[in-house]
């Protein structure tokens, strides 16, 4: 997936420049609340349950201060990504044991044309393994600054 296409799946309404949450559960809820507020999801409890189960499979904290909680659910009709940043960092059982600053929540329906969901996860990984990108994202205050990093500008 091209970076411009990946960028098209983000949305300024699903962007939190400074999360209030200070623990794992609260981060999941705060990001999920965005989907509910924007009427993308009606039953957040079902989606939260799915995210809890996903964390049982293994923490989605991939290290270097990044977490990508994700999953498919019958309670969603579109592939959606929310972004949230915590300057202080949140303990998230990450693979490297370090606090997480950058959160990408990816929610997808049971089936999506072209398997966009897995393509999004695959496209995020190289962007988020680049140290310069991570530094820039940790400093963003506005959506435009953030999406420039995703677009590789």
């Amino acid at each position, binding site marked *: 997936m091209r970076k411009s296409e990946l960028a098209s799946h983000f949305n300024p309404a699903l962007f939190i420049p400074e999360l209030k949450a200070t623990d794992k559960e609260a981060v999941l809820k705060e990001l999920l609340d965005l989907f509910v507020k924007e009427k993308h999801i009606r039953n957040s409890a*079902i989606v939260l349950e799915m995210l809890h189960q996903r964390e049982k*499979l293994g923490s989605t904290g991939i290290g270097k201060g990044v977490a990508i909680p994700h999953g*498919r659910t019958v309670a969603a009709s579109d592939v959606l990504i929310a972004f949230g940043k915590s300057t202080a960092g949140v303990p998230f059982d990450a693979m490297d044991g370090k606090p997480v600053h950058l959160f990408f929540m990816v929610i997808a329906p049971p089936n999506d044309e072209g398997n966009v969901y897995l393509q999004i*996860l695959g496209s995020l990984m190289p962007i988020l393994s680049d140290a310069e990108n991570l530094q820039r994202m940790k400093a963003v205050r506005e959506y435009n600054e953030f999406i420039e990093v995703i677009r590789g500008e």
Partner: protein
Amino acid sequence: MAMNDLERLVSLQDLDLMIQETDEVAKLGFNVTGYDELQKAREELANQISRPLLSRYERLRAKLKRAIVPVKNDICLGCFLRQPTSLAARGREDEEIFTCENCGRMLYWLD
């Protein structure tokens, strides 16, 4: 969370999809060391669903891959057929489990 039968089925399918895609997700670099724990969670959830309903779910899953699908704007997102207005009204409010008259999948109303 206290779930009704429909919500348990939704969660069961969410789990089944997760289990199915474990290999793909692992190839992307995610940690999937809790696979056995996830299977256990699936078993525990399945045990909370009545046997006839679980059998119905498993039969549909074997035949159609996805046994339960979202409905948006009264359209079944399994086969894209519009649901009758009478069914749509009840599907939103009732805890009863309705099926698509066209594809036979169980329906979960999103709106």
